[in-house]
């Protein structure tokens, strides 16, 4: 398998996977339990999920380490096992996908608010990310995705934590935006132009957005990112905003809807597509079909990727 940076440089859209949390809940994770504990206790479930996204046609498979930073794990008393939680997650995905897909180390927010607005110092947050990144890189991830960030300073600390350990590991960095009458902003007040500049400045290889929005808002967000960066752009949409059905919340955007509307993303130049909350292997398979049906040069030369 060619290194991820070479794959990035080749023409064609790259397909990433969809939600892990959504699938973990379907497989017995209880609300309030630490999702990353599954890496220690039920590794086979994570391998099965990775395999199902591989079968759906994803080229990038993420590890179950969204909450794998030491600070986030501390909320469950698991910070002492940060290295183990992250290393096992990488090993599990690698067992499931071998060299048929890129293994991507996921890293979400610390759950703390940085000074002066909150009580977490930059050093504290930085050290927490570094522990996670060191374990992910040490176990051999092909790339890292810093995701769902709302504070640009925190996102920058996470990207820099990777860069302090390795210049060669590719890093994707995504933030989550809310639509407002004045445009898209994160809850901490970062707009897309600031995000694009800040994430690129920190050393990210790929920048973009995930979570918080369905496919239609994501198309607007993607358009704005592309105006403000020359880096490849990644977009991972939720399957819409949950609606009620028979008293239970469900994500409204079907695989067909996401694939049909998502067609606009590669057309405008988005490099990596994937899914966030509420998306399943069926969503990814539908996007695979959409991407494979694109006219060249958007069609990725899959034959060049060892199958």
């Amino acid at each position, binding site marked *: 398998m060619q290194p991820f940076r070479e794959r990035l440089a080749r023409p064609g859209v790259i397909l990433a996977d969809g939600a892990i949390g959504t699938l973990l809940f379907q497989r017995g994770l209880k609300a*309030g339990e630490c999702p990353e504990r599954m890496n220690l206790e039920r590794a086979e479930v994570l391998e099965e999920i990775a395999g199902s996204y591989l079968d759906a046609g994803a080229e990038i498979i993420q590890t179950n380490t969204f909450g794998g930073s030491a600070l986030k794990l501390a909320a469950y008393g698991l910070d002492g096992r940060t290295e183990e939680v992250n290393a096992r997650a990488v090993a599990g995905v690698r067992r499931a996908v071998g060299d048929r897909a890129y293994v991507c180390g996921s890293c979400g927010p610390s759950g703390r608010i940085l000074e002066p607005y909150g009580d977490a110092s930059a050093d504290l947050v930085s050290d927490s990310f570094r522990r996670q990144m060191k374990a992910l890189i040490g176990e051999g991830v092909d790339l890292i995705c810093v995701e769902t960030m709302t504070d640009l300073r925190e996102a920058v600390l996470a990207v820099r934590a990777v860069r302090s350990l390795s210049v060669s590991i590719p890093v994707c960095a995504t933030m989550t935006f809310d639509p407002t009458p004045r445009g898209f902003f994160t809850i901490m007040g970062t707009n897309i132009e600031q995000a694009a500049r800040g994430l690129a400045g920190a050393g990210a290889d790929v920048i973009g957005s995930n979570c918080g929005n369905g496919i239609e808002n994501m198309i607007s967000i993607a358009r704005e990112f592309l105006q403000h960066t020359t880096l490849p752009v990644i977009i991972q949409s939720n399957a819409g905003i949950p609606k009620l059905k028979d008293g239970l919340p469900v994500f409204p955007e079907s695989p067909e809807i996401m694939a049909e509307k998502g067609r606009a993303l590669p057309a405008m130049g988005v490099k990596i597509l994937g899914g966030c909350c509420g998306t399943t292997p069926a969503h990814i398979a539908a996007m695979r079909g959409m991407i494979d049906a694109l006219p060249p040069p958007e069609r990725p030369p899959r034959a060049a990727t060892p199958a």
Partner: protein
Amino acid sequence: MGIIQELSESLQRGDAGKAAELTRKAIDGGLDTKTILDDGLIAGMSAVGERFKSHEIFLPDVLLAARAMAAGMDLLKPLLIREGIPTIGKVVIGTVQGDLHDIGKNLVAILLKGAGFDVIDLGNDVSPQRFLDTAQKENADVIGMSALLTTTMPVMKAVVDLAKERGVHGSTRIIVGGAPLSSDYAREIGADAYCYDGVSAVECVKKFLGRA
């Protein structure tokens, strides 16, 4: 500019040192405690809430303003108690059982406190029993629940059901909020209101208590 106006503006700027200094000055100058509270601190926080709602400012600005409000309240509280000035209402708030997301809930708590309500924040992962036990013990006017996960939303219904079972639903109003929620969902589970954001939560609680 009067000292009360100055106090309100220091709070809006998030200047905790200045807010404390001006509160102290107003108290020492013999200004009415209730005026300092209503026209200084609460008015300042209300302006912050409005500007947050219209996306002129963001979470960091609200957090700083809340800290400034708290700095003023620390000085004012002993006087409010001594003079027997009642709070305008009591709200028990928390993120429901199984859910550890508390940024939104914290923001609502800040704005409710900023509006002058007595807020008992139970934190996150709060069981239905704990919501009701606390609300009953504290004689709360309103229970506010937050959930960010679709998987924890059903806990909200359990709280409403328990309130009905204990016969306090009605005297204690129940409001809900959180990213995956909607007014449809609030209606379906029997909550009194869905609040889109912290500012609408404040408006809603005021309405329930006849203060809007």
